[in-house]
């Protein structure tokens, strides 16, 4: 192709450089520093070459740089597959492609690399600002592609044209986005580097681990209730259950997928809701206690925590039902009960003594021991605080009897310890408590600072009973929120605080927009697609019907666009059109009007060839000459001209 071998002009180089910078800059913080610096200097080098009209580096140097870059990436990551290494490699190629821009073909390759890097940005973040930035990059890259074909227009005009093309592409995008049959990924194994560092609950709890989360106002999940929102004090979002205690920290010890179905009977009014869970890299699906249904591809653990088969690496949406009053685990296995009684051999003698006393007093009556324990917590006047003092080896004793200051993990740990030492099976449950309704869109937002730990005790005949020891000392934590429960001078994230109303209002709006974006753009998955199409009246939408509708609608848009683009197709002078009809008729009789012939000359020639119609031909030609070249053509002449031609039958 002649075009592909045409050398690249300076203007085209500037365009490609701009699009490369737009595509690469957002990724600079994702790649190692040396690569970011190397890329920046390659861009700078290229700019200097273009500016100073210098020659491109020799080919051997380019090859050397490609090899060096690839080896560098490999040494950095020990692989060239996966997300970050792949993007690093793309950056290397882009930077070096710029240094060997020779022909138009290279311009196309550069533009395609830039489009790829836009996708690369989405691997790290898909927020609204990212989307806007990506839109800008696509605009510049498209303008660069336009410039590769025709670099004469002014940059502003070039951008305007690119914007016009992209605007015309938008209807197709929307249609494809909604109707293109979606496939739930991953298609192949996702490298483990996705979601490497996400804050959230962990599978163990030691003093301070939940207090640490209280500093984060990141959203853990959002909930939309189908009916009325249950009271704040009922919003216990069950997370990992931790029965194993080693003297300092509590751990999960559960059988994954023990129950494919909910094993207990329903009770009370069910609560229906939908959770949109932010990715956290673990299997847990937080559910309102007690879970009454299971999302697809999930099961209950032996301690009734819903877990997904795959770790939650993407924002996940699931509908759930809860039975707030269900009795779970009435016939709990002896093994589980034993595990819920085990204590380290020694430590915390004072609490053990209190437990032994309860045991001596109440015997097998778990409910009475429970009441005694609650009574103890009430009497001790424990203080709920974000900044508890450091505790020594006997942390339960020190918390209950000495410092008396602690966060929810101290309360839960001490309560379970006390119950166990009195012979009542008990365990720690971690999760989230509460949440806040966003008045803008009505979603309940549960944030990391809502993380909480509470306890469950097993009482014969009632199964596992939830007791929240924090609620005994700091009921406002449960009935209101964290800010109401902790002293005012303790540092809390902005949203957790109750002052600064206008800022909160702003933040609510922002969160609602983000949530809409998450729900409808980022969370538009096969399920949501099916739901949407079903609500539009498409029963049982499958890929066939979707493709059919998609094709038809794309065709409609294409026709509309074609009509618009090809609008005002021809403005043919009516005189000329009629004359053409006339000459075409004569041409069929062998009298071809030659373009260099004047109409009157032609008429003479044609009349000579066909004397029978000579008069008609001459008259039409004279009218034509008058209309076309004469002064101020008359409408009447035009009508006469047309009539004569219509009547002319040689």
């Amino acid at each position, binding site marked *: *192709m*002649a*075009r*592909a071998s045409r050398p690249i002009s300076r203007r085209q180089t500037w365009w490609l450089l701009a699009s490369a910078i737009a595509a690469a800059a957002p990724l600079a913080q994702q790649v190692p520093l040396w690569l970011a610096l190397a890329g920046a200097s390659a861009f700078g080098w290229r700019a200097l070459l273009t500016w100073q009209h210098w020659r491109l580096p020799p080919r051997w140097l380019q090859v050397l740089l490609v090899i060096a870059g690839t080896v560098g990436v490999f040494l950095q990551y020990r692989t060239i597959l996966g*997300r970050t290494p792949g993007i690093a490699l793309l950056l290397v190629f882009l930077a070096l492609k710029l240094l060997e821009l020779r022909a*138009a*073909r290279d311009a*196309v*390759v550069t533009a*395609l690399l830039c*489009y*790829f890097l*836009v*996708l690369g940005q*989405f*691997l790290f973040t*898909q927020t609204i600002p*990212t*989307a806007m930035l*990506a839109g800008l990059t*696509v605009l510049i890259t*498209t303008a660069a592609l*336009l410039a590769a*074909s*025709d670099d004469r227009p002014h940059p502003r005009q070039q951008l305007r*044209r690119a914007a016009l*093309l*992209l605007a*015309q*592409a*938008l*209807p*197709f*995008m929307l249609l*494809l*986005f909604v109707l*293109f049959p979606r*496939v*739930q*990924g*991953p*298609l*192949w194994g*996702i490298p483990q580097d996705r979601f490497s560092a996400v804050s959230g609950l962990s599978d163990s709890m030691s003093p301070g681990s939940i207090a640490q989360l209280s500093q984060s106002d990141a959203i853990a999940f959002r909930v939309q209730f189908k009916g009325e929102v249950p009271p704040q004090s009922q919003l216990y979002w069950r997370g990992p259950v931790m029965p194993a205690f080693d003297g300092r920290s509590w751990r999960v010890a559960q059988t994954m997928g023990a129950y494919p179905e909910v094993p207990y009977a329903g009770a009370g009014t069910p609560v229906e809701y939908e959770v949109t869970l932010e990715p956290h890299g673990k299997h847990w699906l937080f559910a309102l206690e007690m879970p009454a249904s299971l999302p697809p591809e999930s099961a209950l653990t032996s301690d009734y925590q819903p877990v997904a088969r795959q770790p939650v690496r993407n924002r996940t949406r699931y509908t759930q039902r809860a039975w707030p009053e269900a009795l779970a685990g009435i016939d709990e296995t002896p093994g589980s009960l034993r595990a819920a009684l085990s204590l380290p051999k020694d430590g915390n003698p004072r609490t053990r003594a209190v437990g032994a006393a309860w045991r001596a007093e109440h015997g097998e009556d778990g409910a009475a021991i429970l009441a005694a324990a609650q009574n103890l917590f009430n009497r001790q006047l424990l203080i709920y605080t974000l900044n508890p003092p450091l505790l020594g080896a006997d942390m339960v004793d020190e918390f209950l009897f000495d410092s008396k200051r602690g966060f929810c993990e101290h309360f839960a740990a001490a309560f379970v310890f006390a119950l166990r030492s009195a012979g009542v099976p008990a365990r720690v449950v971690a999760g989230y408590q509460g949440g806040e309704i966003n008045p803008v869109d009505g979603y309940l937002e549960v944030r990391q600072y809502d993380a909480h730990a509470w306890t469950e005790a097993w009482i014969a005949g009632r199964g596992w009973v939830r007791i929240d020891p924090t609620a005994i000392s700091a009921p406002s934590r449960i009935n209101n929120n964290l800010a109401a429960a902790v002293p005012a001078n303790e540092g809390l994230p902005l949203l957790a605080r109750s002052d600064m109303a206008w800022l909160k209002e702003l933040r609510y709006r922002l969160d609602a927009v983000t949530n809409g974006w998450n729900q409808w*753009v*980022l*969370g*538009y*998955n096969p399920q949501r697609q099916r739901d949407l199409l079903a609500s539009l009246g498409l029963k049982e939408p499958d890929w066939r019907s979707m493709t059919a509708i998609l094709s038809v609608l*794309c065709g409609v848009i*294409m026709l509309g666009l*074609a009509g618009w*683009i090809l609008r005002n*197709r*021809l*403005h*043919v002078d009516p005189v000329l059109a009629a004359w053409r009809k006339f000459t*075409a008729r004569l*041409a069929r009789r062998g009298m071809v009007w030659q*373009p260099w012939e004047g109409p009157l000359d032609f008429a003479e020639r044609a009349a000579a060839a066909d004397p029978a119609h000579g008069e008609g031909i001459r008259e039409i030609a004279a009218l034509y000459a008058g209309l076309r070249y004469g002064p101020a053509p008359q409408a009447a002449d035009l009508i006469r001209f047309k009539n004569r031609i219509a009547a002319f039958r040689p």
Partner: protein
Amino acid sequence: MMLASLRLRLHETFVRWALRTRPPEPVPIILTQRRVYVLPTRAGLAYAAALGVILLGAMNYNLSLGHALVFLLAGLGIVAILHTFRNLVQISLSPGRCEPVFAGSPAQFSLILENRRPDARTSLRLWIGDQDAVEVDIDARASKVATLGYPATRRGWLPMPRVTVETTWPLGLVRAWSYAAPELMCLVYPAPAAKAPPLPWSGDSARGTTRDGRGADDFSGMRKHQVSDAPRHVAWKAVARQHDGPLLTKLFAGASAQQIWLDWNELPATADGEQRLSILARWMLDADAAGLAWGLRLPALQLAPDNGQEQLAAGLRALALHNDGAR
């Protein structure tokens, strides 16, 4: 090799089908929707492949925005088809001028491209056969002349071969093209012989004049020198008089000043027909350059002695079309 020739044959078949009406076509040729073809370019195929890869990535990582990106770019591709098509469709071609040329040099066919639509046409490329393309832009509701070269190898009428009109504007991803075979003929003169016998002065070709031009011819004036004027007629004295003035040529009254006959039958017997024509062409150019009045005798045609551009054109035309029907 086989494949290449098959491709060529298929292409020829396609072009013949595409042109349907047997060339030449009636003018003006309007590139209507039905005769504009659209296919992706190599860049367009690469673009489509890249979109496929991006889509796979977006699916694998469940990137909603990745899907949006692919769909936007796919829409861009579709829009590019429309724009490229729009850039070419409804252009009308009509034949322009074509100056005669000597065999061996490229014939220059002029085409008048007319754009009756209110949008400009950008980067149209036209070419004939395997010749280099000519790139033109046409403003909205305007017309433009494109001159396409094609090597003229044989004397006689050279009909303009099929023209390909192509554009990949705006994105270079899609190629729209069309074929046209406008009726335009180029007259190709025989190539002047590189080595020719000297002008035939002997016999009855020179009539009572001497070679140096003194005598019967009267000096009648001077005019500005033209490249075709013989150096002998330059008014060297006048030039010497007026320093750095233009070269002047002496004019002589009377066409009869020097008169020769260029006669087909007087050519060496060894020369065949085409060589004779070449020699005659050379003689005509030389005689014209020398300002001689010359006449031409061909077996079937005779031109009275005269000089000047018209005589030259008539003579060369006679040579070009000599025995045209027999060939």
